[in-house]
């Protein structure tokens, strides 16, 4: 089984490393043909405007949306959450627009407000997850199919909707692979 890593811009190498640590193969995705024979996809942290623009320019949106609607699991991290969201505050159009959430970009403030903290993720059990938030987005609104998996300061920071998973923070930075394993279980179960 091969997990696609969207490699247009951002911290995609760390995503590959995390997936490899969990015993799966990875494939970097830059063009539509790279989407063939992958069973899941990770959209990494980076700049969502850059990643979104390149997704559009290289004609990846349509085939990707098709695959996701057919059930392929996708995990969006920080910028990846913004890419998946149906609504982005202050922006006319969404990128993939598949997840029923409204996000606010850089919602905690500029870089000097970036932070790390422990959060509880009930689905992963103990101990708490050390979460790193870098110019992170916030989820402002959620649709009715969206399950909130973790909350920080009253706002959802980890959400799931069927085959879509998204976090505001960066699980790859702390090398705690529990969220990646959770996602890879989603991939296995879909298979």
């Amino acid at each position, binding site marked *: 089984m091969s997990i696609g890593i969207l490699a247009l811009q951002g911290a995609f190498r760390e995503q590959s490393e995390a997936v490899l640590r969990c015993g799966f193969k990875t494939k970097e995705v830059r063009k539509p043909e790279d989407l063939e024979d992958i069973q899941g996809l990770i959209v990494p942290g980076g*700049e969502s*405007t850059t990643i979104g623009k390149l997704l559009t320019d290289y004609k990846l949106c349509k085939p990707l949306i098709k695959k996701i609607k057919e059930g392929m699991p996708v995990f969006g991290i920080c910028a990846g959450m913004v890419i998946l969201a149906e609504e982005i505050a202050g922006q006319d159009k969404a990128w993939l627009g598949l997840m029923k959430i409204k996000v606010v970009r850089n919602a905690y403030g500029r870089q*000097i407000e970036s932070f790390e903290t422990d959060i509880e993720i009930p689905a992963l059990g103990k101990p708490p997850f050390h979460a790193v938030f870098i*110019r992170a987005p916030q989820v402002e609104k959620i649709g009715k199919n969206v399950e909130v998996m973790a909350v920080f300061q009253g706002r959802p920071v980890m959400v799931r909707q069927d085959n879509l998973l998204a976090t505001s923070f960066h699980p790859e930075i702390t090398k705690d692979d529990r969220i990646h394993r959770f996602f890879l279980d989603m991939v296995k179960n879909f298979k």
Partner: protein
Amino acid sequence: MEKGTWTVKKGLAEMLKGGVIMDVTSPEQAVIAEKAGACAVMALERVPADIRAAGGVARMADPVVIEEVMDAVTIPVMAKVRIGHFVEAQILESLGVDYIDESEVLTPADENYHIDKSKFKVPFVCGARNLGEALRRIGEGAAMIRTKGEPGTGNIVEAVRHMRLVMGEIRRLQNMSRDELMACAKEMAAPYELVCKVAETGQLPVVNFAAGGVATPADAALMMQLGADGVFVGSGIFKSENPERRAKAIVDATTHFNDPEMLAKISKNLGEAMPGLEIGTLEQRMQDRGW
């Protein structure tokens, strides 16, 4: 909840990888850069080619220019301070810029000491010509490194030299035995702990971008293939004939750096690149500023 930690400073640079950071001198240029797919912008009063031409003392930009750029775009905004000028850095931190470049493009304020960057909450990027210089800056708290290259020349030769030196020295360290590393740290004038870490991991402890002379998509791809994590473009975009098209092409080339067919397509019809300068003819080698 902890802010301004090493992890979040280094982490932002990680998120910029595979991207292009563009020099801009106005909110209009910043918007062009963002639309072209820049992952961050560097707010300046003048691009390095103009600083070089103007001569005199180059300083931190007017905070108005920086604030206008910050208001115009949603991507991270960086700004430059003079080497050793920690008060300029305090000012930029208070403005809320996302990254500070302690840069040889500006006239140094201190010939002996760089800024103690570990004191700041805002992260710093610094230039380096070789591994020792990179590790000294990291030792002072820099959370990101870039090659110095030779700014404002549109000539890639110095950036290539610096990237090859850094990558070559990393490979050399990996083959050393433990007892050789202390002697090597002495010879490179680099912190011993960092030398050991590089020898063990085979990479710099922070992200390393290319800078100083990138003028074409092929230049960007060349630097990526030599091991850069991403690219800074200073004068190369807004001193060229068609900035919009060139900016987009350099972004595309940084993503598809390993795909010659794509690079051929990307390189077509970009108009004139910025005029280039031969390094031997320069009156001021900016890379020699700092140590």
